[in-house]
């Protein structure tokens, strides 16, 4: 008997996975019609007046039938997510390791004091100048990619690359003019700094595109490729280290651009989507917080170095003195930060997973229950992360000591404080990621501004009164402020997370 029934009714009776509870009698009627049950068939084959009469009869039997399995989004493996997050920081780790092993890397190395200062200025400037560009490009590129519009994602990357090029060139010209007026660096060193700023800036924008296409290993490949070019030019062909490095960085940047755009092109091949016109004012308005935050973040990361490099310069040729003994422990501490960045990635994923689970189990009467659970989740994540991060940093500290990398009390002090600061910075980074996930980029600015101001003022005061290496306390204080202020900001939003979550996806 059942075999003769239309497929839609059989599906309901047998509660097949494809079965969906009918919303009303008309719903059943439509399904019957799609199974070929016309009024005539309903009358002659099944003995009803018409399809709607048949639907009405069957709705009574089927409306409470078991729903077929609904696909719930698969939960991602957090370890894999952690590794993915870390993978984006892998190139930095490779550079650090190569530097420690060979004395130079894609940039930096055993350079004479003034050249090292020029390179350092160029590298730090590249981070600060392009940090905002990369953030804004990532936001727009990921927004389009998230809506399946890969053509516009590619267009956004292309446009931001153009804006980045203009801003980098303008910053370099402005810095050269400034230097010509005030004579901080010699002409040659100023050009060196500008060249590194442009080359490194290009590399950051290129790796930003690889971030948008989620290709962390390609970032690593581009970095390794750049390092190889430096080795070939410097060791095999005898070119000067600085020239080799500029060419190596430019090559790596080119590789990153080509790979990124090729991947984007592959994704939108055959897609006839429209390319939207440039709306410069609207774009600036929408991306302003990302632009500002990106630069603030790198200022926070490097402010203490700038403070240290400019403190107690005494009889030096330039007002900026590169401090290798300040830099090395900072780089060592950076290794712990790389692991922390992986946690940020996986913690963001577990935020989404947790939100999904709690939202599904929350009645409308219990929205505050949902918010409270997520408040607890946020604090719990931090409470778990900080001890683990400090334990990892302790291992790094003892390892560095056993390898004799922390040879002087100064390097020991800087490493200790930097290792204390980076986990706090990581927590701040996670908080900002959460604010971005909730489409609240403006909320990320006050903590970042406060942190930069505290970093600069604290580091400046201590380094000018006592010793340049005390600038590291500015970094610690800035990171602590960033951690606390951003946590407060997140907690404030999480108290009404149901609302902010709604708006973030609307």
């Amino acid at each position, binding site marked *: 008997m059942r075999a003769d029934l239309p497929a839609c009714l059989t599906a309901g009776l047998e509660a097949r996975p494809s079965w969906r509870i009918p919303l009303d009698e008309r719903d059943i009627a439509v399904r019957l019609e799609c199974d070929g049950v016309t009024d005539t068939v309903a009358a002659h084959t099944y003995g009803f007046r018409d399809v709607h009469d048949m639907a009405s009869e069957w709705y009574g039997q089927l409306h409470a039938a078991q729903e077929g399995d609904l696909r719930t989004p698969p939960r991602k493996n957090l370890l894999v997510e952690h590794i993915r997050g870390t993978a984006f920081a892998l190139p930095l780790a490779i550079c650090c390791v190569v530097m420690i092993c060979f004395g130079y890397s894609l940039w930096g190395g055993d350079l004479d004091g003034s050249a090292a200062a020029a390179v350092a200025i160029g590298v730090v400037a590249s981070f600060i100048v392009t940090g905002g560009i990369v953030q804004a490009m990532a936001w727009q590129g990921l927004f389009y990619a998230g809506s399946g519009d890969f053509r516009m994602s590619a267009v956004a990357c292309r446009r931001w690359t153009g804006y980045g090029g203009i801003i980098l060139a303008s910053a370099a010209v402005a810095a050269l003019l400034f230097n010509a007026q005030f004579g901080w660096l010699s002409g040659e060193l100023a050009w060196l700094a500008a060249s590194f700023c442009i080359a490194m800036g290009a590399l950051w924008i290129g790796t930003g595109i690889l971030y948008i296409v989620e290709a962390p290993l390609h970032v690593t490949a581009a970095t390794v490729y750049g390092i190889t070019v430096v080795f070939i030019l410097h060791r095999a062909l005898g070119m000067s280290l600085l020239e080799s490095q500029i060419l190596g960085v430019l090559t790596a940047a080119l590789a990153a651009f080509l790979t990124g755009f090729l991947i984007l092109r592959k994704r939108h091949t055959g897609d006839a989507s429209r390319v939207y016109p440039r709306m410069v004012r*609207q774009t600036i*308005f929408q991306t302003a917080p990302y632009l500002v935050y990106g630069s603030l973040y790198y200022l926070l990361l490097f402010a203490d170095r700038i403070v240290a490099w400019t403190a107690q310069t005494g009889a030096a040729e330039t007002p900026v003195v590169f401090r290798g003994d300040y830099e090395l422990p900072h780089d060592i501490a950076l290794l712990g930060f790389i692991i922390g960045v992986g946690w940020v990635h996986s913690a963001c994923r577990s935020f989404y997973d947790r939100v999904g689970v*709690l939202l599904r189990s929350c009645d409308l009467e219990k929205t505050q229950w949902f918010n409270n659970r997520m408040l607890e989740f946020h604090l719990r994540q931090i409470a778990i992360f900080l001890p683990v991060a400090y334990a990892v940093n302790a291992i790094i500290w003892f390892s560095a000591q056993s390898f004799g990398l922390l040879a002087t009390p100064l390097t020991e002090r800087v490493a200790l404080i930097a290792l204390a600061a980076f986990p706090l910075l990581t927590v701040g980074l996670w908080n900002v990621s959460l604010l971005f996930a909730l489409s609240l980029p403006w909320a990320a600015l006050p903590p970042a501004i406060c942190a930069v101001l505290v970093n600069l003022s604290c580091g400046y005061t201590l380094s000018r009164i006592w010793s340049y290496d005390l600038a590291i306390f500015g970094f610690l204080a800035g990171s602590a402020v960033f951690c606390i202020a951003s946590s407060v900001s997140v907690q404030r939003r999480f108290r009404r997370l149901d609302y902010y979550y709604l708006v973030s996806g609307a």
Partner: protein
Amino acid sequence: MAATVLLTTEGTYPYFTGGVSVWCDQLIRRLANTRYHIFAIVPSPKHPLRFELPGNIASCRPFPLWGTSLPGLQTGRVASTVKRAVETTEEVIEDRFLPHFRSMLRAFLVQGSPVEPLAAALVGLQIYFETYDYAATMQSRIAWSTFLAACRSWLPAGRRPNLEEATACMRWLIRYLGILAVPHPSVDLVHASMTGLAGLPGVISKLRHGTPYLVTEHGIYLRELYLALSRTDYPVNSRRFLLSLNEAIVRTNYRYADTITSLGDFNRDWQIRLGAEASKTMFVPNGVDTERFGLAPERRPARLTVLTLARCFSLKGIDVLLEAIHLVRQRVPGVLFRILGERADPEYYNQCLSIVEKHQLHSNIEWGETDDPAGALNEAHVFCLPSISEGMPYSVLEAMFSGCPVVATDVGNVASVLAGTGLLVRPKDPAGLSDALLKLLDGPEAVGLRSRLAEAALRRAHQHFTADACAQSFDDIYSRLSLCEQISQPV
């Protein structure tokens, strides 16, 4: 003076191909003295124009529901957007927005609510959004709290969404209602090419300015929504919300439309069942451009060819056709099936490919797209449409004009179009479909039957389904409604 018409579409003309788009294009080109403003609701801003716009289109405004960073209309004028957002204070929202919003939510959540309060709320909301910012209002805390309170108050316990479903529902609402923030030009008549969201400008213009409002339904909006919802993975309460929201909007469309045209009895019965007044409904069948589609028997190839012109997605029943081909091929091994149309659903297309692989049908099938359906029909011996849902498919009409006998499923208005001049089968029935195809492909009777059906279909098509006749019918309706307007007042 030429009449000015606001023609509203959703997911069709001029950004997508398909039957409704062809109808729009034909109508606009044939009524060259009518000036059209097009308001096209599209899923996202990425869709390029798929039709060349004729000179009598005065303006064309796409409205993307999704894919923009903010809901509502994106003007690109930052200063005015900021000014409006600043003026949209919590007090303003509470005093001027919430009363209409609550009234609208009640109509959406309480099934069978009268449509008049909803219509009044829609008008109130549109007036509000003329002054205040859409995104700032709809994304305000107070709007969200009101939505949650409305769900708690007006939905029975078992049908109340959980917080995840409520979030999804409110997000839909935020995106859909953006239509209310779009200003429209002053026109003589609003013509909606379907009910649902595309009908809202017509309802509001009718109420605010007394503008005549004409609805043309090719399919049945709500019926297609039922179908779509039965295939989604949305939780049941989210599906209920979408249905209830759209049902309220469709009923409002029917209530305020002056005339509702449909393509045949099947659609009209559904319209009346869904609340349309029978006296407002009338038939205007689709029509085909007779200069493009005609007989060319000399182009028929030696190899027996069956043509299907359809976009490849589940409602077109291509999977059923492939199963039928497997059966047909056992009797007619050399037959070629050409399946031409955009691959609208890649997942479904892959599913079809797996059927081809399973039965090793490669040598009997040609996939592709065509810009020349007339040529493709002239090169086919039989036309087959295996859909599980249709309004009045253009491809069947075009086959009739091309002298290509039709085998189609008995869905929508297909039976009334063919009226015995083609073979009808039940949908989702591969055996039935293969039997019908074999009648026209195999055996001594096949050639004669093809010829008889083609001649009868051609005669019928010329009598009832020309594009000129279709356009003339709408011209008459425009004239009649415009005359009525001269003596009517805003409702």
